[in-house]
């Protein structure tokens, strides 16, 4: 298989990690694309939940936002925002939280708040949204973001959502019910927390990617697994479904009311 982009590989690698039948709390953007790809390939019974209150959303195009009408159209149920966060997320019903990030550190803590100082930021980002409690209460968290040195940083400018906190058992001390991030999927490879230290280590690179390339784009001294794998390249089906989804989404977006 040839002729796919690193972004396509990232979405496909992330989609593969979603087991069929799980309840997935989906962030907008990259996570939403991956989750919807999974639902269209190997995980048709995966139940997608968006923070706007849609339970079992079945969008036929990717939503531009977490409250698009396509999410409510054929959902199993639509509830209020407090219900989604309290009865579904905080109650521990969510198997997988799918999150993006602007910055991430070696313990998979996330920043989506500011670049620079909080009071006088260089870049003011949108902020926390649903992420802190998804990171806290989903049974497991999968993070998807592009692998850039400015994103994979030694020290976060702001800790918006807790991953493995300061490593080791420090997350457990915060009283969160979920296990935290189990995987970080990028356009270069896949990272997982080490058993004891909970520090992220590179466990797979995507086809054609060198470990040095990944180190280059990581702002700390990246741990690499002794048993480093290479991700299986996208199948024809995966690529076909992903591209069709993007095409339909783009068409719907252009159409709209305008």
């Amino acid at each position, binding site marked *: 298989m040839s002729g796919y982009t690193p972004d396509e590989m990232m979405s496909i690698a992330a989609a593969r990690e979603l087991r069929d039948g799980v309840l997935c709390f989906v962030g*907008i*953007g990259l996570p939403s694309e991956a989750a919807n790809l999974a639902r269209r390939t190997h995980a048709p019974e995966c139940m997608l939940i968006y*923070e*706007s*209150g*849609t339970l079992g959303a079945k969008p036929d195009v990717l*939503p*531009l*936002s*977490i*409250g*698009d*009408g396509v*999410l*409510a159209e054929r959902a199993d*149920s*639509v*509830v*209020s*925002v*407090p219900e989604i*966060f*309290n009865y579904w*997320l*905080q109650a521990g019903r969510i198997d997988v939280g799918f999150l993006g990030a602007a910055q991430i550190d070696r313990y998979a803590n996330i920043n989506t*708040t500011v670049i620079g100082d*909080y009071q*006088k*930021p*260089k*870049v*003011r*980002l*949108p*902020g*926390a*949204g*649903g*992420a*802190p*409690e998804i990171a*806290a*209460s989903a049974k497991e968290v999968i993070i998807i973001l592009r692998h850039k040195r400015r994103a994979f940083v030694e020290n976060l400018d*702001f*800790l*918006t*959502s*807790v991953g493995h*906190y300061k490593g080791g058992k420090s*997350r457990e001390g*915060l*009283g*969160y*019910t979920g296990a935290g991030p189990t995987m970080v999927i990028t356009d270069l490879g896949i990272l997982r927390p080490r058993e004891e230290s909970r520090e992220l280590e590179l466990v797979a690179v995507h086809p054609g990617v060198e470990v040095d390339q990944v180190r280059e784009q990581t702002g700390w001294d990246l741990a690499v697994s002794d048993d480093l794998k290479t991700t299986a390249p996208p199948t024809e089906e995966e690529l076909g479904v992903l591209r069709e989804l993007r095409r339909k989404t783009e068409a*719907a*977006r*252009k159409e*709209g*009311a*305008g």
Partner: protein
Amino acid sequence: MDKLTSLREAVAKLVRDGDAVALEGFTHLIPTAAAHEIIRQRKGDLTLIRMTPDLIYDQLIGMGCAKKLVFSWGGNPGVGSLHRFRDAVENGWPRPLELEEHSHAGMANRYVAGASGLPFAVLRGYKGTDLPRVTGTVAPIKCPFTGEELMAVPALNPDVTVIHAQQADRRGNVAIWGISGIQKEAALSARRVIVTVEEVVEEFEPRPFQIVLPAVAVDAICEVPGGAYPSYAHGYYERDNAFYEEWDGISRDRERFRGWMERHVLGVESFEEHLRSIRKEEVMKA
């Protein structure tokens, strides 16, 4: 129904300088028309409250109406930054903007506490994050039965909440269907409530996932067809995603933003005229 009034009158009467105002909506049913009317009436020193400040908050902030923002996610959904919001935070233009920042779960529960007449809400969150460091309104609280330490957040009780809904009936009850977000709690936690609606009907039909806010919880109902544009009103018209992308360009530059606002918001007398001025009058006939 004596609550039925014009949007101009409702805003003039119910929104005051210095008020804490929540114009809520979760992508769906954003009260754009009401935000424009607030800008046209030059309401000032507002504390703006909202989980997901988007284009209308960008407009209110860029026009200098806001002194403070209470929020949990401020962006142009699916597009990127809110440039006027960023300019206010990063450069203090047109005036500095004080921030009170929470997570969605925190904001949602603050509205629930406000609607419940309680001074605070409890949730499992915030711990280990930098939010409590920069946000004064978070405090630890211990379960008297299990000893578990959780987090408390204070109730939100806006002076005014504004929402957009699909329908009101002749008695003044309000029907919302599709995604209803935090609108019920935002309305029930407020001292005064303005609802703009697509239309006033004799009686509601049953609709999927419909909620009805009783008349007694509403102070003013204003019929404004298309009043949520460029957002959508489930059953009436779709979201104009293209406009959200267009806004990125309009709002990026201070002058272009001011020019657009002067021409399309300040320079018109009503939302109907606004829609005509941007050639979107078709949403009124949806």
